[in-house]
């Protein structure tokens, strides 16, 4: 099974909203704690190391893109 990046929710806004609302009222530290637990729960639910690694790669690639863009902007 490969990582699915198609839109899987019938109402993606509801899913995004549910995550956002979970963080409402939390400070950064509490939010980070919540995310850490959430990542572990979802990773276990997926239960497939290859899919997890693909997801990590996708997330990490995005971080890399962001930092490269920032560097380019600084150089300009």
């Amino acid at each position: 099974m490969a990582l699915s990046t198609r839109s899987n929710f019938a109402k993606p806004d509801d899913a995004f909203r549910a995550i956002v609302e979970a963080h409402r009222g939390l400070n950064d530290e509490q939010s980070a704690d919540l995310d850490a637990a959430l990542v572990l729960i979802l990773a276990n639910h997926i239960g497939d190391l290859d899919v997890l690694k693909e997801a990590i790669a996708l997330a990490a690639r995005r971080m890399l893109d962001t930092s490269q863009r920032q560097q380019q902007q600084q150089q300009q």
Partner: protein
Amino acid sequence: MALTKTQFGYRRHPDQDRGAANIAEHAIVVVGAGPVGLSLAIDLAQRGQSVVLLDDADRIGEGSRAICFSKRSLEFWDRLGIGQRMVDKGVVWSVGKIFHGDSLLYQFNLLPEEGHKRPAFINLQQFYAEAYLVDRVEELPAVDLRWRNKVTGLEPHNDHVVLTIQTPDGPYRLAAQYVVACDGARSSLRQMVGAEFTGQVFEDQFLIADVKMTAAFPTERWFWFDPPFHAGRSALLHKQPDDIWRIDLQLNRLADPAVEKLPENVRPRIARMLGHDKFDFEWISLYKFQCRRMNKFIHGRVIFAGDAAHQVSPFGARGANSGLEDAENLAWKLDRVLRGTSPQALLESYHIERSAAADENIRESTRSTDFMAPNSHQEARLRKAVLSLARETEFGKRMVNGGRLSTPSVYDTPLSTADADSWHGGPRPGASMPDAPVAGARGEPMYLTDAFIGAGTSFALLEFSNGAAPELPDGLGTIRIGGKGGLEGGFADPTGLAARRYDAEPGAAYLLRPDGYVAARFRHPTRAALDAALARAAGHN
């Protein structure tokens, strides 16, 4: 330590009287009389080899040091004739408990089934293990154990090595066809061959205290994350013989070792843990550790084993046990090469199998260490999430890493013959043989591991008999298992556990290496297939 001999005398050996042009020549010199060197020497001697065993000290080291000896190590020691003595003295255990704060997170049983001769682990102070091994060596004239013989020089040649050895009577030299360096983490032989020994250094400090007290704690391994008596850190409590308890406390990275080690500073910590201070110190040691291994375990005619070749963190009992696995792996190979029944290339499989095992041990123990001592805020946060999830979820419990205890590696090795038949269980080629209860010729209860010892020191065929008696290659030991009723000249399987653990129906057979690892298995072996598998397992490729 009463009744256990730990001090030995230097004795001058006739080798020391020979001139420079006429130095003594030996087949095998083992350097280092610790658990690994002693066990290796005994195994080689039992195979008919003469071994010179050198040690730079004249006594067994103090302190408990290694304390957890695995089922696999006990099965090896059974083959060396000292397993029972170790078990009789040791504290048998198989249950571990993990606490977070003051509540139990979960517990595990490392051997949750019956029908094994040996327990998952015994705890035994290393000095007892060494003393029993020395006693066994003294029964074997083929092992020439020389105390206060310190190797100071190593001169490699194509087909031998010349060692320079310092003694109280001055230096002498001798030649060896093979030298096995079992001289520990600070191996001087490793430096002499110029091998690198690189890896990861951990900054966290741990304090080991062995304390003597009478206590009613069960014989289980107890591990705490963030216990009330040692806030924010981890702690371990484990029982040893003689009312000695091993306590292992994680310290601050910046703690000053000299200060931390003072008994007046250790005592209050442990009193907080135990809730009383009615204990005496046996041994206090502060340590940091490294995870590293040599790139090559074989340097010409010098072979490295145990801590000399690889080092791991102590969480998981992977130090001494992996060294003993090195010894059982190497002994039969070296014996066959010296006899000329296998090519020298067989030794390369020692490096292949045991360096992969070292990598596995390093990986496992590094993960445990990182879990106990997170390297960043985010690692700490993830650990906190795991620990809190463990209170209410099964997956969380399984992610809590308070040390994954040593189990034998499964070798991906050129000595194995890949399965051609379909199997739904049982040990695959490269795995160690599982034990099972069997009954002997007179119905006496015994174990498969006993039957393996009875089958000799060479390769053995474990056959689940279907009544046929196939013609077997010469020199192959046999273990023939009948059904519940047994069979003439073989063993019965009264509980059916042997057949079940080997996924065996009548006719099936496992080819076992001299170290008890599976080389090949067949639903219905043919003579040609057996010959081929045997040749492959003996390194004739």
